């Protein structure tokens, strides 16, 4: 008995050590990558790199944020709506199972496939040029399954006592969803939005043939309906991730490598800032509701 007990303690210690090692390894790997990108980025800094001229990455930075924003405006309402449907309305059965398979399949499609689909449908079939809006649509397709699943899980995780309490005072199903379930689920849904935005920030393959690989803007035009205007979503526009790829593979610019390195660092900081901001917002909502 005694030695068995001892063995259990040793096994417990070994497991703890191994888990710590794995966690430490990942942390190190992550820190290494981050440091490498940031340091190389800082070393590549040169005055005027943020400019909106050809040598700067201002336009690409703007395109990235703009595209992610448009794609979130499209995908969040649809994804959250679909998630609510799956959690609250879909009855267990063949149709629901089929829907679930579709969502899972969609979530594992390679992004180049979505990009080519986007090219076919949003560009070729509509007869338009590469444009940011088409890119945002493609990214939306990529992030929809994620948003749907996260929302469904978040709504299901709302304690049933809240729901019952709401229905018991005569609230309708819809009132209960909008006023009780959604606010309670919001912090978790925000996590999903961060992940979805992350896909948008980092996506390249899906944008290759939808948003295009170059930008051509005239900074003196502020009419968002003019295809030369920075604000026009229906103009070609390359995002940072795609810009990095283009610079590293086929650019003729002499300091392409440096611009690419700097862009990578900027992209990293951008994603970090977005995640942090969203998490702070989520935490604030959470605090407000729990009264702490």
């Amino acid at each position, binding site marked *: 008995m005694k030695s068995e007990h001892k063995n259990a303690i040793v096994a417990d210690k070994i497991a703890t050590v191994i888990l710590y090692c794995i966690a430490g390894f990942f942390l190190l790997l992550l820190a290494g990558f981050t440091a490498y990108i940031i340091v190389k980025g800082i070393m590549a800094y040169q005055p005027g790199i943020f400019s909106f001229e050809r040598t700067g990455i201002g336009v690409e930075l703007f395109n990235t944020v703009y595209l992610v924003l448009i794609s979130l405006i499209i995908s969040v309402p649809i994804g959250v709506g679909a998630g609510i449907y799956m959690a609250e309305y879909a009855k267990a059965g063949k149709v629901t199972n089929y829907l679930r398979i579709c969502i899972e399949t969609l979530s594992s499609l390679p992004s180049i496939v979505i990009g080519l689909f986007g090219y076919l449908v949003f560009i070729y079939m509509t007869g338009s040029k590469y444009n940011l809006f088409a890119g945002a649509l493609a990214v939306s397709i990529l992030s929809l399954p994620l948003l749907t699943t996260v929302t469904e899980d978040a709504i299901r995780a709302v304690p049933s006592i*809240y729901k019952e309490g709401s229905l018991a*005072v*005569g*609230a309708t199903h819809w009132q209960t969803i909008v006023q009780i379930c959604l606010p309670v689920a919001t912090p978790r849904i925000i996590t999903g939005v961060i992940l979805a935005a992350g896909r948008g920030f980092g996506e390249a393959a899906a944008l290759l043939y939808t948003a295009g690989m170059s930008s051509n803007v005239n900074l003196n035009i502020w009419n968002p309906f003019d295809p030369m205007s920075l604000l026009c979503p229906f103009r070609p526009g390359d995002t940072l991730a795609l810009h990095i790829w283009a610079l590293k593979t086929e650019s003729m610019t002499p300091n392409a490598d440096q611009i690419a390195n700097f862009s990578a660092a900027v992209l990293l900081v951008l994603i970090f800032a977005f995640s942090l901001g969203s998490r702070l917002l989520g935490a604030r909502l959470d605090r407000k*509701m729990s009264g702490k």
Partner: protein
Amino acid sequence: MNKKIKFNTKNLDLYYGDFQALKSINLEIYEKEVTAFIGPSGCGKSTFLRCLNRMNDLIDSVKIEGEIIFEGQDINGDIDVINLRTRVGMVFQKPNPFPMSIYENIAYGPKCQGVKDKTQLDTLVKESLVKAALWEEVKDRLNKSALGLSGGQQQRLCIARAIAMQPEVILMDEPTSALDPIATAKIEDLMSKLKKDYTIIIVTHSMQQAGRISDKTAFFLMGEVVEFNETPVIFTNPADKRTEDYITGRFG
């Protein structure tokens, strides 16, 4: 004194899938009284309580047969469930205030019914909290989250939330089982005050509680009502051997 019948159930059967949870329940519940349901766990008392405001609708596999007449209408028929739930309020086993302010918790129900007028809502919130004996404790922190209240306060808040709908009946599903003795005493006190205005039906595991606060008691066992009578009769002179065994603690 001839009291009106509030709920009248006739041959009520309830099935969860193939399992019959309630067997031919016939009960008359009188208005402005406290009626207690007692019985061992799984005897169907909570299930029956949830029939009275159609909370069992939430469970897909439930099938109900028989009638529950509330104010002349069979509530198992084609009725306005929302309207029923505003007239038959409910307090749950675990205090379940919404994660919002104390004020919003009370105002939620009326707002869902379309009450928008701020003064009307203010009055309603205050009156409900006063009736639930919570006003003095929370009047200075109405805009603070309800989750910051103690368990007993939270449960009284839930009672206030039910009262705000100006219901006729308040259903209570073991409302004090998660509370300490002092908080329990407060809620029991409150119930005896509330029965002047409301019909109260309470499910309880505590026979002492049923004895202290109820006018009538129904003893449930395995989905059946074994005995239903004036509370003193049930506790001092039960007609059925099983009731006697249960209240004397021989099982359950």
